[in-house]
């Protein structure tokens, strides 16, 4: 009789244990996070766009420098004793062209910088969704140091893995 009770109790315990394990397992959500700033600063796209922007701004700067040099020569001629109204008018035209171009390039550089920033941000956002879906994450966070994610265990940090995914795809 005692033996039967023991066997029955063991059976019930086993079933209860299995149920608990199944419940725990089904509630176990896979989470991960990345250090957004690290990903942003090291991603290939950013480095490539930065290089292009630098190339373009340098080209524009040298164009402006050349114009400025021409202007300074003209300025000396205009302020000299042999100055004429034609020279003065040429100087004024050149000056206006220089100022116009300077303003145009400043605005265009700024606009391009913003467009590139948006492009990088979109790329990271799109790829992080694809990465999380491909790796089966239920929640995928980005630590940006603004209080959105105050702490994440090192084991959940997949920054390196995501960085590789981002640059490869």
């Amino acid at each position: 009789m005692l033996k039967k009770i023991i066997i029955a109790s063991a059976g019930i315990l086993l079933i209860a244990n299995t149920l608990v394990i199944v419940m725990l397992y089904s509630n176990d959500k896979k989470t991960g996070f990345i250090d957004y700033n690290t990903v942003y600063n090291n991603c290939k796209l950013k480095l490539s766009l930065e290089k292009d922007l630098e190339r373009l701004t340098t080209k524009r700067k040298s164009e402006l420098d050349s114009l400025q040099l021409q202007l300074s020569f003209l300025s000396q001629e205009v302020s000299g004793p042999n100055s004429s109204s034609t020279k003065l008018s040429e100087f004024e035209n050149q000056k206006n062209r220089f100022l116009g171009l300077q303003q145009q390039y400043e605005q265009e550089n700024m606009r391009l910088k913003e467009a590139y920033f948006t492009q990088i941000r979109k790329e990271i956002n799109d790829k992080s969704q694809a990465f999380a879906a491909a790796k089966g994450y239920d929640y995928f966070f980005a630590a940006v140091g603004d209080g959105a994610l105050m702490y994440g265990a090192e084991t959940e940090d997949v920054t390196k893995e995501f960085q590789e995914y981002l640059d490869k795809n």
Partner: protein
Amino acid sequence: MKTILIGFIALSLLFSCSENKTSFANEEELKAYVNDPDNGFIASDENGDFIMEAKLIPSIKEDKEPQLTVQVRLSRKDGGSVLDFGGVPKNEALEREGYLSFEVLNDVYFEDGDQLQPAIFHHYERNYGLKPSIDLFFRFNHFSPKDDVMFVYRDQLFNQGMFRIPFNKALFTSCHVQD
């Protein structure tokens, strides 16, 4: 011995399949080959609200100065008119056409490793509002890249960022056209 022979045949087949066709009976055959999307000459990139499609046309060996051509089509994801993007007034749309006709050349290049291959000539095809997309042609001096090459369009007109389309280095081999 048999294994070596099979391996050799398999390898030869693999290389013959991966190699690009570079000899054509006439221009029509070359056109058909380039227009087949499976051959890698047509590729696209999406950025923001725009899609850019590019078709690489290889240089012809027999030409005095072999040149590569890239045909570009820029369209909006929502199917709207590219020139009117952002609901700009007519005069601004015309200014955009001015940029596309005379200045866009400075914003297009091939990235060949650390070297840039600038476009030497371009043509903007005005369509007078008959279709929403726009078409551009760019010419480049022939070059033989060591690695795969990136076709780059830096979009300063619609603020969509940078479009980058990779092309296999094998596609840059000059083609021989008999007729």
